[in-house]
């Protein structure tokens, strides 16, 4: 016992504490050194290049800057593509929310068609009030007929703005055509339409935004730049479709809508067929429309009668296209930026061969050297990623300011950008970092 007690304390700390500390102090030190070499070496000379003397930059600085801006632009593009795409699925969700399986849509465009025929459809005449009247008067089968026209606009009340509200113009047939329900108050009447009344029905989200604990009925909201209208009804809450709320909306009489937002957009006329008679109804609607447009029997139709399944098809195609674009841009960015990272890292390894030799000579393990260079690669990539996210957010807030579309970069997408660039750094930094780690100490020390 006493012998044990008399023994001198061990000179070395226990192995696990050493390992732990070697881990942390080593890593932190590497991190600092990586930062150091980046800042002292490349960025600083990069800034010099931008600002002061054009003669004093190194190729490495140029490359670092180019790589960083490459990553930045790539990340920004990918983020913006995702933003636009989610915007599109939002607007699609809004449209789909009005659709039933028995509903036909008379429209200038043929749904689900993209690309080559674009001009043909573009040059067709809009569906107008005259077409609507013809359908209302001359068809027998439909259960309900309602015109639809919509836009995104800002709605305000008492100094508060809500952007990106789905504002629609329609007539009294809307509820039957879409299955929407009124919770309180009333819907648009034929009289409202006739006189262009300043009346509107608001969705549940609008009620929440402006009238917490108040009675909305009888109050006024401003729709778009200059229309004031009285709230006459409130829709029952619909919930989300495709992750997008369906309750951020205001419905106006069609005539009031056209007065405020103009008549340029043309209508979509929703026609609800009786159960099991979709084909017949489609035939009748087509005949009435041909007649209204005065088409000779051999003339091609200059309107389309669409069904929901067509729309779904077209939407899927479009989503696929933007997805592919996003993925392609992402891949190209990753490759270009990755090669850039690899390149500056290889140069850095070469320049610092002696330093690697010195570190190995005083006891750095291979893994430590590997880690040091990986840190550096990730750092370059993260700087690029951060700049890209900042640019995308900037672009989004500009879009938000100058358009009625609500645009902002989803925090999850930002996180994705950060993770993506870190992965990029590791992926393309691995090879140069490995070459650094595999250097033989003697040869590295001898390197000039």
């Amino acid at each position: 016992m006493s012998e044990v007690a008399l023994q001198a304390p061990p000179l070395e700390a226990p192995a696990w504490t050493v390992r732990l500390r070697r881990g942390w102090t080593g890593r932190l030190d590497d991190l600092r050194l990586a930062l150091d070499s980046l800042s002292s070496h490349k960025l600083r000379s990069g800034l010099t290049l931008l600002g002061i003397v054009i003669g004093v930059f190194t190729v490495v600085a140029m490359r670092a800057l180019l790589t960083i801006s490459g990553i930045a632009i790539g990340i920004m593009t990918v983020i913006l593509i995702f933003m636009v795409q989610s915007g599109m699925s939002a607007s699609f969700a809004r449209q789909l929310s009005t659709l039933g399986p028995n509903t036909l849509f008379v429209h200038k465009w043929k749904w689900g068609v993209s690309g080559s025929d674009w001009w043909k459809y573009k040059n067709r005449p809009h569906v107008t009030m005259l077409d609507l009247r013809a359908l209302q008067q001359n068809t027998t089968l439909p259960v309900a007929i309602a015109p639809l026209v919509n836009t995104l606009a800002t709605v305000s009340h008492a100094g508060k703005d809500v952007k990106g509200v789905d504002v629609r113009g329609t007539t009294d047939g809307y509820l039957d055509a879409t299955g929407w329900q009124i919770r309180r108050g009333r819907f648009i009447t034929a009289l409202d339409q006739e006189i262009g009344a300043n009346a509107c029905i608001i969705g549940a989200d609008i009620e929440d935004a402006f009238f917490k604990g108040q009675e909305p009925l009888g109050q006024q909201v401003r729709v778009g730049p200059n229309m004031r209208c009285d709230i006459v009804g409130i829709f029952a809450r619909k919930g989300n479709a495709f992750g997008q709320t369906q309750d951020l909306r205001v419905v106006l009489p069609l005539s009031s809508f056209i007065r405020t937002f103009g008549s340029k957009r043309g209508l979509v006329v929703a026609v609800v067929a009786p159960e099991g008679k979709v084909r017949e109804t489609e035939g009748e609607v087509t005949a009435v429309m041909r007649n209204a447009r005065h088409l000779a029997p051999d003339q091609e139709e200059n309107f389309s009668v669409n069904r929901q399944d067509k729309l779904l098809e077209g939407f899927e195609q479009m989503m696929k296209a933007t997805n592919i674009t996003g993925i392609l841009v992402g891949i190209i960015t990753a490759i270009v930026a990755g090669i850039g990272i690899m390149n500056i890292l290889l140069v850095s390894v070469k320049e610092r061969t002696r330093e690697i030799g010195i570190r190995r000579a005083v006891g750095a393990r291979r893994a430590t050297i590997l880690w040091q260079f990986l840190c550096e690669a990730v750092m370059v990539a993260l700087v690029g990623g951060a700049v890209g996210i900042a640019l995308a957010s900037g672009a989004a807030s500009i879009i938000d300011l100058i358009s009625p579309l609500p645009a902002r970069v989803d925090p999850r997408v930002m996180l994705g950008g950060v993770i993506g660039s870190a992965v990029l750094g590791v992926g393309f930094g691995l090879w140069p970092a490995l070459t650094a780690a595999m250097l033989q100490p003697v040869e590295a020390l001898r390197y000039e």
Partner: protein
Amino acid sequence: MALIELEHIVKTYDLGLSKVPALRDIHARIERGEFVAIVGQSGSGKSTLMNIIGCLDVPTAGIYRLSGRDVSTLSDDQLADVRNLEIGFVFQSFQLLPRASALENVELPLVYRGVAKKERRDRAVEALATVGLEDRMKHKPAELSGGQRQRVAIARALVTQPSLLLADEPTGNLDSRTGEEIFHLFLDLHAGGNTIVLVTHEPKLAARCPRAVRLVDGLVIADGPGREVAAANAEALGAEALAQFQAAERAAQAGARP
């Protein structure tokens, strides 16, 4: 047990077309506490031998035991640890990190040992004080003279308190007065109990080492008291080197016995 045991050490550089035999059959033992000089003409294999002893390189054949452990059985990580824990290496060209201060350079081996920051700093300051550089700690290598740089390198070698101090021509890049100062530092360190192996091509320095080993074409030709081996080496180098050596020796004797 001897600190260093070399048995039939062979090192051949394979250049593809030809093979260069740098070390042919080296036998040597060095005990703890010795101060050994390695002398020999340029290309005789001194650096090659030092790199093997310092675990920076491995022999083509033969057995090298450090503290009784055969280093050929060690993994790359274990060799790194041996370099870190047991060996302090001083190079002719200093080999300091150019962007780090003197203090940070000296701390470096402790970083890889996992020593906490505060203790690291204290030990590095102490090592720098040992070599007389306590007032230059924040300087970068470029802001130091050659002699001062070599002192930083020596402090870095000392900071881990290694069992073996290796120096490959530590005075080779210095003028003779500064070289003399650095050599004195090694003599002091030896007096303090350190084991030192030092390569030099200056006979007058080798002569003052208790023991010297002379290499010729990768073979040990002489091994004995520094004065004798150095004299033989100087002779081999030619009349001029011999005259220089004798002059230095007379001066040293006159200085030693006032």
